[in-house]
């Protein structure tokens, strides 16, 4: 559905997008992930024919964004980061205007407007002025305008930014419901969002493609085996160092990290060698030593850690990644 080959966008002073290639299949929901300023918006603007690329080729629904922009635009629904709304219009007047703008036949404008109003659950405010709507509501009107001409491809630039947690969940549900009919690319710098909504991830950083894979593959690819977290209560009979040394002796354990100390309670994170399940042995070792095992849980590598791993920023300067919720 979307093919991008060697796409670059250069400005006088900096390179926003540097030689990016990827493809998106029909019906996929793809998360476009990267820290702020990574080139997400620029890439999306190229795909929507808002910006011409400096180099490279991109086709949407079989049409070239540079050669046949008019055809591409007919097949794309686009929600920019700030929803493009006219505050002085009412919701239904606005949607009817967008429908006509997107070449929906005059006879179907009313019907399409009603459909998207129902789809995005904005019916109870349909005749209100957009300027009077809350931010979450505006976002939904923005989504409604993006799907009003039933496009093959939906491009959503940070669809949940600036919303409260409830609105974020509603918007994510809405996006999930839209999949199937549409191929969706959504950009975000919020990692749980990708895990919640997308099947596939495209990670870019500083204008370069870092990884493109399914969410599952990506996790296992960057993963270094499963990690577990234990909490041990020694009742004052041993200090943290002793406990750690004891755990380190368990076969299969590759690394033990101190996580927290609360009086006599110690929390460790234990990494194991690839493919080894060390949980039973660790538990036995602790109990045999006469300590109390308060907690033992597996902590799989989060997408956030994968992301930091891939963008290489866990060593260098911190990347402004928000792990949970909105910015």
């Amino acid at each position, binding site marked *: 559905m979307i093919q991008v080959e060697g796409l670059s966008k250069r400005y006088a002073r900096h390179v926003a997008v540097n030689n990016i290639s990827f493809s998106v299949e029909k019906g996929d929901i793809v998360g476009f992930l990267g820290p702020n300023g990574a080139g997400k918006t620029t890439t999306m*603007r190229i795909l929507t024919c808002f910006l011409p690329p400096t180099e490279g080729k991109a086709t949407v629904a079989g049409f070239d964004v540079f050669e046949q922009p008019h055809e591409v635009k007919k097949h794309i629904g686009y929600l920019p980061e700030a929803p493009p709304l006219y505050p002085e219009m009412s919701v239904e007047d606005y949607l009817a205007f967008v429908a006509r703008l997107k*070449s929906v036949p005059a006879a179907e404008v009313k019907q399409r407007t009603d459909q998207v109003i129902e789809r995005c659950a904005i019916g109870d405010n349909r005749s209100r002025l957009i300027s009077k709507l809350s931010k979450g509501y505006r976002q939904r009107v923005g989504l409604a*305008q993006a799907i009003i001409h039933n496009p093959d491809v939906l491009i959503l630039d940070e669809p949940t930014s600036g919303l409260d947690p409830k609105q974020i969940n509603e918007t994510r549900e809405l996006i999930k419901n839209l999949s199937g009919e549409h191929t969706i690319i959504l950009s975000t710098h919020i990692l749980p969002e990708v895990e919640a909504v997308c099947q596939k991830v495209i990670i870019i950083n500083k204008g370069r493609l870092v990884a493109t894979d399914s969410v599952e593959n990506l996790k296992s690819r960057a993963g270094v085996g499963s990690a577990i977290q234990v909490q041990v209560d020694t009742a004052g009979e041993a200090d943290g160092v002793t406990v750690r040394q004891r755990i380190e002796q368990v076969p299969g354990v590759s690394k033990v990290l101190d996580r927290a100390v609360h009086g006599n309670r110690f929390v460790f994170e234990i990494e194991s060698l690839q493919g080894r399940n060390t949980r039973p042995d660790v538990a036995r070792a602790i109990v045999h030593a006469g300590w109390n095992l308060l907690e033992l849980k597996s902590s799989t590598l989060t997408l956030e850690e994968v992301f930091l791993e891939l963008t290489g920023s866990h060593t260098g300067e911190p990347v402004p990644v928000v792990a949970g919720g909105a910015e």
Partner: protein
Amino acid sequence: MRNIWTICRRELYAYFVSPIAWVLLTIFALLSGVFTYIISASFVRASLEGQMSGQSFPMNLNEQVIAPLFSNIAVVGLFLIPLISMRLFAEEKRQGTIELLVTSPVHDFEIILGKWLSAVLMYAALLAILALDYSFLFIYGNPDWKPVLTGFLGAVLQGACLLAFGTFISTLTRNQIVAGAIGFALALILWILNWTTSFGNSVMVQVLNYLSIVSHMDSFSRGVIDTKDLIYYLSMIFLGLFLTARSLESIRWKA
């Protein structure tokens, strides 16, 4: 064609749901009313004086009331037109809605023509008030209607021409006030260019006088459609809209 009308309709909607249309209509109604009253009152007094003194000067409503009214209104237009055109693109850029227009399957020229057309219709709505003022002259007098029609044609053309430049200026900034101020300065310069006629009659002066926007109204308000003036207005409209198209294109390359 349908796209132009879609965009034009939305712009008219925006004018009339915001205070701008009503403020402009009020200002224009006041000014044109005052001008009509002053000019026709002095016409009535002159004709009374003529009768009392026993000399009968040839009195003509068209030449002594309607033509001067048109040139006064042309100047009023210079002040109001930047207020009409300043929001056209500046507001879209500020709100980010320009992204909606540009990523929709419409051509740039359709966006530009739709917006410009809405501004021209808005200005024509102002001139309709002047037509209302003139209707009193037709009720109480017997003027020739043809110079009135050509006068309106001239006024609309002059407005259309300034609005084309106003549209261009509006693409340059996201700030309406800036767009309005530059538009106002341009209108003022185009107006006072013909003041140079007092400097003699050199080629330079003639060129400047031809470029001046108000002088082309004169023949229209006297009932004459001069091709020279028509070409002036049409080519200025084309230039303004052409610059708009180039500017809109450059927004994309720079954005």
